[in-house]
């Protein structure tokens, strides 16, 4: 951990201006930033503490959407009445993530910006295209189990996106509001996170000095059902091996507007669009869910230690859809 300067501006514009003065990092909850600066993976010259910006509100907009301040903690978001009522998938996803202590610190904006958990990325020494473009990927020929993807991978990087919250947001649909030196703009949630492709060092759509101020969730749909199922080795305090966020409505016995997102198995919060197409307008059945689950992993690439994530991810989809449509009997959501 290098020495850095510290600033705590009181307004968004000031924060952006301060950030632009040096090689900087925004500090929200710190659970990613301080972790990575401690192990010398991030080396900011300046840390801009944004906790004084007042971005900690959750509010319902006139159009029905719910706007979440970037500094709303994971705990506050998960426990908020609007979220518990209208977006159970998000509440469940948040509460399945990390630990009580980390959720109390981690923020909405910070979680969007969460970085991969690949040990080769984090060790500061192994070849890693994300950390040192062009140096190679140690994970492809190394150990690639828990925190590695089977969807959206490239020959440059196979690290999975670690967030649970983002998977739920991908299923709900959201926009990310950012402020930057050139003003403000909105980024569709699905376009925010980038696939590694040939540039794994580029992880998101933010321009230099831009700051996430809010994430705005699509307006809740009437009669929508949603839920999150996270599968992992131990029962808590572990990143997903595979997870499924599902959001749908049942009208006249058929599935409408299904939105399925996957976690733990992909290099970004992963919309299973093919699965959604298969489900749309169909009557729920085990066979249908299996067909959708199979389609969701049609493009998957298994690596030496994570092939099991393909059937496991399919299990997550089938079980969560069963839960939401009432096909399952005792399936617990978690």
């Amino acid at each position: 951990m290098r020495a850095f300067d510290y600033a705590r501006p009181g307004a968004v514009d000031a924060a952006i201006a301060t950030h632009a003065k040096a090689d900087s990092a925004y500090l929200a909850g710190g659970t990613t930033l301080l972790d990575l600066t401690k192990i010398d993976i991030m080396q900011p010259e300046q840390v801009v503490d944004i906790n004084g910006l007042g971005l900690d509100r959750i509010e319902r907009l006139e159009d029905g959407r719910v706007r979440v301040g970037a500094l709303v903690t994971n705990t506050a978001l998960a426990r908020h009445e609007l979220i518990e009522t209208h977006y159970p998938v998000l509440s469940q996803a948040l509460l399945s993530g990390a630990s009580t202590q980390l959720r109390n610190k981690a923020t909405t904006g910070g979680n969007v910006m969460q970085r991969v958990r690949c040990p080769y990325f984090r060790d500061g020494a192994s070849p890693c295209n994300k950390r040192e473009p062009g140096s190679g990927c140690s994970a492809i020929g190394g150990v690639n189990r828990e925190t590695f993807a089977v969807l959206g991978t490239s020959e440059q990087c196979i690290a999975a996106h670690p967030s649970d919250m983002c998977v739920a947001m991908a299923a709900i649909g959201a926009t990310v509001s950012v402020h930057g030196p050139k003003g403000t703009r909105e980024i569709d949630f699905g376009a925010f996170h980038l696939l590694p492709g040939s540039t794994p060092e580029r992880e998101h759509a933010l321009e230099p000095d831009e700051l996430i101020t809010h994430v705005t969730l699509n307006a809740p749909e009437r009669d929508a059902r949603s839920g999150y199922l996270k599968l992992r080795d131990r029962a808590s305090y572990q990143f997903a091996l595979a997870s499924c966020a599902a959001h749908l409505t049942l009208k006249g016995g058929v599935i409408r507007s299904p939105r399925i997102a996957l976690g733990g198995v992909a290099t970004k919060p992963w919309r299973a669009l093919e699965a959604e197409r298969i489900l749309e307008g169909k009557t729920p059945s085990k066979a249908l869910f299996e067909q959708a689950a199979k389609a969701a992993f049609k493009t998957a690439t298994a690596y030496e230690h994570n092939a099991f994530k393909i059937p496991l991810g399919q299990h997550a989809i089938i079980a969560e859809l069963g839960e939401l449509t009432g096909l399952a009997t005792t399936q617990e959501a978690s």
Partner: protein
Amino acid sequence: MSETLNTQKPRIDGALKLSGGADYTADINLDGQLYGYPVGSAIASGELEGLELEEALGMPGVVDIFHHDNFDSTLKHSPNSFAEKNTVSEPRLPFEDTTIHYHGQYIALVVADTFEHARAAAQNVKGKYRANDQVTSQLDELDADNVAGLPGVLQEGDGQSRGEADAAYENAEVTLDHHYSIATETHAAMELHASTATWSGDHLTVYESTQGVVFQRHALSHVFSMPPEQINVISHFIGSGFGGKLFMWPHAIMTAVASRRLKRPVKTVVPRQSVFTSAGSRPRSMQRVRLGARADGTLTSIRHDGSNETAFVGMHNDTVISATPSMYACENVAVTNRVGEVNHGMPCPMRAPGEAPGLFALETAMDELAWQLEMDPVELRKKNFAERDPASDLPWSSNHLIECWDNAAKRFGWENRTAEIGAMREGDEIIGYGMASQSWEAMRLQCSARVTFLADGRLQVSCGTQDIGTGTYTIVAQTASELSGVPIEDIDVRLGDSSLPSGPLSGGSFATATVLPAVKAALDAATQALIDKVTQDGQAFSDVDSESIELNDRALTYGDRSIPVTTLLEELGIGQVTAEASAEPGDEKNDYSFRSFGAVFVEVRWDPGISRLKVERIVSTIDIGRAINPMTARNQVEGGLVMGLGMALFEQTEYDKSGYLYNANLADYIVPVHADIPPIDVELLDYPDYHLNAFGARGVGEIGLTGIAAAISNAVYHATGKRIRDLPISIERLLMAN
């Protein structure tokens, strides 16, 4: 005995531990102290060609950087002898040569004025390496049949083989031949290893998180060519060790050298990653078990061939076959263990070494045999119960294994088991029942202690052993209180200091059986010293035959005469009476075999729809002789069961093909968390084993971790029909197995 012994006593150090007042090594800050931070090798095999130090040396607060080229060349190796109490974990001295033997091997120690400065500079020290492509893993070849023809060191099982195991196997009516493996595990004690060294003239004081202050003192005395009396090792509280802190690691030597060179105290708290790479593990082991039996279940042959990895920097035999010859009545038994070198950090004993991995293989094989024979697994074990130790042909000092099986089975509800695979269900979940036997050898070693009667009525007891969380402070106080009548709150127990009378390692479940007899001997000696004074002319008992005087309830008594010790000290005009004494085992090992036994039963739930396996409940009955403090003893067993749950389902220290330790942290090395813990029901039988010592205690630290992994694996088979012979029983193994 007694009001105080075999009684549930809250720990005497409880208030300190619960309020943040207990001083663990890293909590001790000395005036003028500097901070050390180690740098580990980025590669696992090769040569260190040089270090980039310039940038780090110029960083704020950096005082010096120690490495191969500037380290102390006068250091000597410790002889590494258990008998001489100078065993070390890693025999190689720090920075001894420039060969890289494992990922994380220390290549430098940065010393700076603050922790932050030391860490920042350490992150800027980069090694220049010539990597060796050849990373050795001889053990991968051990699946072949001919054990003797394979690489690695063949270590016969202490001459424990008997009969003609191979011939009996060939002639057996029913046979079984399977391979088992256990992943490398890491102790992962919550307290990071830490060492603070300070020199005063030619005297070295080391604050260390260690399970053996005496061993470390003796090891340091060889390394630094000093009389042991000039070295003191202090470890008042230890954030546990599980074997990982039994013997000294290189960081302690690095720190002491730095302190001597810089003439200031130096504190090194080993970062978590380095604890994983460079401070021990239970090595990966591979085992082959062959069983032969008659159709009625009588075992006719047991052949158990084990192997474990060790490091190039030292030999560690994990003795996975150690319990096998004693477990069951069988005339023909052959055991071997082999050791092969790999480019990994040095392994060392980890809680229940040998028995935990060995009984996973043997007790899983017994379950498989029961299925082959269509016998109840409990009945198969009972059929082969050993009335005396078949390995030594000595009678057991005390063995209540049959009661353990029956007691645990009853409390578990084993009779409700439907034998058929997958037949027990609840909702989406398939229920599996499994059981296994548990065992750990009981040992007792030599030990000294000191007891002092103080004028204010307190009794001080001191011994150079440690309390690593097992409750040693408390049981020493209970024992001294019981024997002297001094209330437990007036017993002052001093442990964790090598200047105290020499005490045992806190490991191997032998501390209780070893220390308490020494406490008694020292109390007797101190009492005698007091009697010698008060029977002098003019003193209170001058008219009395000294051999008839007894210590009772804080007083010396003779017939109706009873005078409190405090009164006697006051009359004598002295502040204390003290004595040191030793106790050691006699020749009882020639007459009896000492082993603790237990039985563990497990229910698992398997939800195939989501590939989720969970342990639903654990029931265990343990025979450890007498528990001095059933509260802390039961806690030990429960903790062992929890660690066994981790061993069975999660734990795996993963190295990639280059020898890189992939998951050197507590997020990627999966240990059980609170949400994984099912209801645990432990019953301790109470059959004092007076052949081992006057207190009847055999010790309790390890046994909980034995058998549990097999019981879980056996329950998984009952639920799923999948026989997982490789630990951990991970999701992918369950998904991919047939």
